[in-house]
């Protein structure tokens, strides 16, 4: 992993749809080398996947997302890892993190309706061993995700020419 790899990662994190040729001109590498570096980063699982940031509300999709806080009793020898890995197997769990503060694990769960999300939590998450407490927060509106603002911002007026 060198400076060029990091540069490629920063570029792709911002826009993964750029072609190898485009990344090559930006970084000053040959496009073959960009392809090779990206493949190596994929193989090493540094690049975990490519996805699109979608404003689902605008797309007319009424899917529901919730942030779920879990208080968990850690296991001897494993801490939170085994239970976290188990939770992350659920398709419904999009994101899972271990947190400092008043709770331990944070899940982002999506479902078609609020009922579906709450059923998932009460039937699958809450009853698991070692989970002491859950708190479910339904996401009402997303204003910004992964650096992308979801609200309209007027384009600042620039002069067409300035010296």
């Amino acid at each position, binding site marked *: 992993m060198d400076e060029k790899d990091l540069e490629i990662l920063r*570029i792709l994190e911002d826009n993964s749809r750029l072609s190898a040729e485009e990344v090559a*001109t930006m*970084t000053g590498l040959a496009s073959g080398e960009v392809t090779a570096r990206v493949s190596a980063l994929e193989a090493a699982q540094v690049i975990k996947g490519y996805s699109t940031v979608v404003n689902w509300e605008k797309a007319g999709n009424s899917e529901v997302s919730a942030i779920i806080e879990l208080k968990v009793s850690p296991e001897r020898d494993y801490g939170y890892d085994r239970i976290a890995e188990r939770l992350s197997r659920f398709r419904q769990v999009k994101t899972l993190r271990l947190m400092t503060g008043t709770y331990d694990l944070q899940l982002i769960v999506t479902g078609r309706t609020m009922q579906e999300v709450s059923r998932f939590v009460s039937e699958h998450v809450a009853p698991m061993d070692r989970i002491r407490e859950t708190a479910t927060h339904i996401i009402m509106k997303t204003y910004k995700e992964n650096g992308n603002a979801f609200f309209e911002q007027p384009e600042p007026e*620039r002069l*067409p020419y300035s010296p």
Partner: protein
Amino acid sequence: MRDFISERAREIPPSGIRKFFDLVLTMEGVISLGVGEPDFRTPWTICESGIYSVEQGATSYSSNRGIQKLRDALSRHLAQQYNLSYDSNTEMIITTGVSEGLDIAIRAVTDPGDEVLIAQPSYVSYAPCVTLAGGKPVPVRCVEKDHFKLNPDLLAEKITPKSKALLINFPNNPTGAVMSKDDLKPIADLAIDHDLVVISDEVYSELSYEKPHCATATVGDLRERTITLNGFSKAYAMTGWRIGYLCAPPELCDAALKIHQYVMLCAPVIGQAGAAEALHSAEEDKNGMVNEYRLRRNMFIAGLNRAGLPCHVPEGAFYAFPSIEKTGLSDSEFAERLLHEQKVAVVPGSVFGEGGAGHIRCAYAVSRQDLSEALKRIESFITDL
């Protein structure tokens, strides 16, 4: 009624881009590479502190030199970033943009008849500011063969007993050229031999893509005869905040301060609050923008060369300055036809003085998307010629 217009006002030429300006306003779908300012918004921490300062009622004049907190922070920043040491109380003035700094620096050192050597192509206001100060602008040509650096031999040719000052700007608008310490050394020797004061506009200092910027005042014994000008506009996307600064040894600084206090009183205080915050918290924002400019530059230069417009790789600022000579058009014709036929706005190089003709200035401070669309249009323009 008499003719009220002064000789001096008559003498300075009107802006060379005015006619394009009027034209572009009547057109739709134009991609403008004619804008000499960042396309980013000012980082929000800076905006917040400007808003907060207004809420706190910090809306009166500041001291002539500028807010103490800003000057102290700046003094530390310059030492750390460029190895420049300027005392915040005796060697620094916060100005209303570099534009004002330039004006008061020139007026502080120019007597009627003094010749001011200007490395050109250059920013459009240098020569008129010298004229307004009663001096005589003397262009020194920077040529493409030297990557638009200032060549000491070409400078020496223009030095006369009347030469008083040398005005330089690296990284350069419009060429993107930079000068390293080694490049500046022979220039410093000439300035010292001929006892010139050096006015160094370094407003693009943070936008140096290959190696760290070399501040003119750090070269040899130049500090005692250098007025360093810089500002927040380009690095922090703060053009409209109008904050620049002038740094010079106390005697030079005091002379500039006298002019500043009579013509400007102080730089806008809200802008000063924002600038202080920029130094405090916007380093990462700045680095992100610089990185983005570098990527765009690489992409744009490759595209220009592909399109058949040879272009040296600009090492700083956010301008490309390709030669259009082999199209057989003059730079004005090229710019005009490109705007009419492909709706891409660029600035003809001759606007920037000597050595600019036969080139166009393209600012790549626009989104990558617009840049690649502009490149496509330029390519078809050239193909159709």
